[in-house]
């Protein structure tokens, strides 16, 4: 059985959105919660665009009328009994998570900057090694590394100050948030915000305002998403082990 999400136990009908292999999603309840699953016949569930959007479509259809804890793509269990056992084993954590995300959605922000030019401009290590043949001495090598470290530190500090400023402008509109600075040299900020549904417009306005005040940055704001970034470890563990061959 393929698991899409854990939800609060709702009497609403399952959405008509088909699951993987066009199988209808089913709800397996346990006390006040339920797991939404569908049968499948695949040996391996590859993370293709089709399957990923199929998974997402089911989760989002569920979001329309119930609180949802999205489960990682590719999570399968052996059958209904296994689902019930998982829900029972992690019941308290799942209930707590459902309470946390009730009425809320996730918005994502990614920011590109042009600060990569300020990064250490000394030759890369591979080039320095290549210069060995032309008689580079050990002292020169370490001095070049020292300068590289210094420039990198200054560059990183610039990035962190700017990322904190952007994030700070948005985080106060959210119930919870996470962020990472410099996932790549050009990706200044990757952040996720758990916000009340009715604050989406205000949030979007703030992002547009940041676009105007920071014209050299590229801002990409997306959502609303199910709260993937805000499900805590206990609930994730409850989502089932992946069968060998499923993708992480």
């Amino acid at each position, binding site marked *: 059985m393929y698991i899409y999400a854990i939800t609060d136990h709702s009497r609403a009908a399952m959405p008509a959105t088909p699951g993987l292999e066009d199988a209808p999603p089913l709800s397996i309840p346990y006390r006040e919660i339920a797991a939404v699953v569908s049968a499948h016949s695949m040996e391996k569930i590859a993370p293709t665009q089709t399957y990923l959007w199929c998974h997402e479509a089911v989760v989002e259809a569920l979001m329309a009328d119930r609180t949802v804890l999205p489960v990682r793509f590719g999570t399968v269990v052996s059958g209904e009994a296994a689902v019930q056992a998982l829900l029972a084993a992690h019941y308290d954590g799942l209930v707590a998570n459902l309470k946390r995300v009730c009425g809320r959605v996730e918005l994502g922000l990614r920011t*590109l900057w042009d600060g990569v030019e300020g990064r250490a401009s000394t030759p890369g290590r*591979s080039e320095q090694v290549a210069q060995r043949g032309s008689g580079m001495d*050990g002292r020169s*090598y370490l001095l070049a590394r020292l300068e590289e470290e210094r420039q990198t530190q200054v560059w990183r500090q610039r990035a962190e100050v700017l990322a904190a400023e952007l994030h700070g402008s948005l985080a106060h509109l959210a119930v919870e948030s996470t962020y990472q600075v*410099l996932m790549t040299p050009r990706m200044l900020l990757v952040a996720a915000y758990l916000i009340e549904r009715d604050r989406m417009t205000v949030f979007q306005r703030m992002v547009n305002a940041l676009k105007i005040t920071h014209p050299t940055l590229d801002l*990409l704001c*997306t959502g609303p998403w199910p709260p993937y970034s805000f499900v805590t470890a206990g609930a994730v563990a409850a989502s089932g082990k992946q069968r060998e061959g499923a993708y992480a």
Partner: protein
Amino acid sequence: MPDAQNRQAQKVLCAPNDLQAFATELEQAGRVLPRQINAEPEEVERGLAKLVLTLIELIRQLLERQAVRRMEGGSLSDEEIERLGQTFLKLGARMQELKQAFGLEDEELNLNLGPLGNLL
């Protein structure tokens, strides 16, 4: 895949005109995330070499940074600075040879160290 494209468009709340740059950076970011080791016979040797060389590169960088800090702090003599620098140059050259022997690029040895950023 029009339906998927429509869904993607509906999810974008604010974006620049060109999204390709984001796709490129996300692809690069994805390369440094832990992956399953490919256990296919013809790839397992390369996969293990990648793992071992990544670990060696991590240790090499840690030792280099420690040496640089000690040099900056003045706790190394001129002879020690020269000797350490030469050692790291030789280590670097040997790493290049090993990477070439296994057909690995620098980016393939990159590793996401969480709060510490990427290895390379």
